[in-house]
């Protein structure tokens, strides 16, 4: 091994072997999923069986709607949050930043329980969410809330890194020339961090689409596609779960190709 490392291109060869092993480990389940797909079941699940197809399409559309809504709301509130974290110093900043990252570290079922005890009808803020028609238990808003909770750290951290990468002197010059803080944010900070914001949006969207643990706890109904995959796996077996999973996998591949394209521009 040591001799190989010292040889010409030795390190590249070892790195390539390691990368190949890892890529294969990730790639083989993907191939297996598609290999296992039964065209008949796939067609039944998505087209020919009216009951199954209706359930599948409704769940898929609901997942896309909720994940898009969650990501848009996160953009609206996440950009100012990321800006504050990137540019301002304030008391308890480290603690607040750590709390924002909590959803990254806890099991998603626990995340679901936290959302439930906070925002359900009988939760801590239940009087408020119920009053506004936004109670999370078994509702569309529950799906959105669960998705937002687990993907917020990804959106905020990605946008924050993008803002931090902008030289603050660019903003200082604009302020010195008479532009207000808001104007500087809109004309300098925002346009220069657009790529990072787009990446943050796509990553948080991808994270939302893939969420199941928290949604299972907060809002089993109305069903999202991920909940339905679990349900069909338990009720109809593996081939039906695979049939439901394939569009999800294709969608996630498309999303990550989009991220790469955004980053490459």
């Amino acid at each position: 091994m040591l001799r190989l490392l010292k040889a010409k291109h030795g390190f590249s060869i070892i790195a390539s072997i390691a990368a190949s092993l890892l890529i294969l480990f990730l790639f083989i389940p993907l191939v297996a999923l598609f290999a296992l797909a039964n065209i008949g079941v796939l067609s039944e699940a998505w087209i020919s069986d009216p009951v199954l197809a209706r359930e599948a399409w409704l769940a898929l559309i609901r997942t896309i709607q909720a994940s898009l809504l969650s990501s848009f709301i996160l953009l609206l509130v996440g950009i100012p949050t990321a800006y504050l974290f990137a540019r301002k110093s304030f008391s308890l900043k480290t603690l607040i930043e750590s709390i924002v990252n909590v959803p990254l570290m806890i099991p998603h079922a626990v995340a679901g329980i936290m959302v439930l005890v906070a925002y359900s009808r009988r939760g801590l803020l239940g009087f408020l969410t119920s009053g506004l028609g936004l109670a999370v238990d078994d509702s569309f808003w529950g799906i959105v809330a669960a998705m937002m909770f687990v993907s917020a750290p990804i959106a905020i951290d990605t946008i924050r890194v993008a803002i931090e990468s902008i030289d603050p002197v660019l903003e200082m010059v604009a302020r010195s020339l008479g532009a207000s803080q808001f104007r500087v944010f809109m004309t300098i900070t925002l346009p220069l961090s657009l790529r990072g914001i787009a990446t943050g949006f796509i990553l948080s969207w991808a994270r939302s689409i893939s969420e199941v643990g928290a949604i299972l706890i907060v809002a089993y109904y109305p069903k999202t596609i991920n909940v339905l995959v679990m349900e069909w796996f338990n009720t109809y077996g593996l081939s039906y779960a695979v049939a439901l999973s394939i569009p999800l996998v294709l969608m996630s591949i498309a999303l990550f190709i989009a991220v790469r394209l955004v980053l490459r521009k």
Partner: protein
Amino acid sequence: MIVIEDLMVKLGSFTLQVDYLEVRDKEYFVVMGPSGVGKTVFLRTLIGFIKPLKGKIIVNGRDITNEPPENRGFALVPQDYALWPHMTVYENIAYGLKARGLDSQVIREKVEWIAGILEITDILDRYPNQISGGQQQRVALARALVVEPQLVLLDEPLANLDPRLRFKARSFLRELHMKLGFTAIHVTHNIVEALYLGDRIAYMEEGVIKHISTPIEFIKSPWSKPYLDEIEPILGMLSDNR
């Protein structure tokens, strides 16, 4: 006239202390000192990005110590010029005028006027990454001067240029000051730049201004001793200039 009284800034273990400093109208005032003595901190305090612990900054009788940067009437030219890469040269120069809500026709006239003086009219539609370092410096100067600020703050504006260009840019900056007569505070660690450009020089060490004088008086002072090797070759040029 800019008056700074009893200014104190604390950043960690570093302290900046300016007891009294007066910059006259249309004066080109240079703050000189080795790297890390607090020159940039001084500029950033003047422009409003660092809050002083105590003291006053008075511009033409108005206390602006607690004003936000956009209300001070200053303009910053940083070391790396900090041109906005997503805007053309024209948009960069017009930015401060737009922020002041001027009419687009007036903006165009002013941008063309300053671009003419700085000889950058032919690059107005280019982006910063499409122009040379010397041109970028002129654009940064144009962007600051077009708003006709009460004070231009230049933070090592020649440091990023190669030696040949730096010499040219120095002469250009001097001519520009003579032509437009703006008030400037220029910070630098380069003694030649300070002596050549400054009407007066303040020598700073460890956050304190140790000495203020004209360039000729500075050369005669003990503060110039560490720089004698650099000063000797330009002595003739200085006496020709003044």
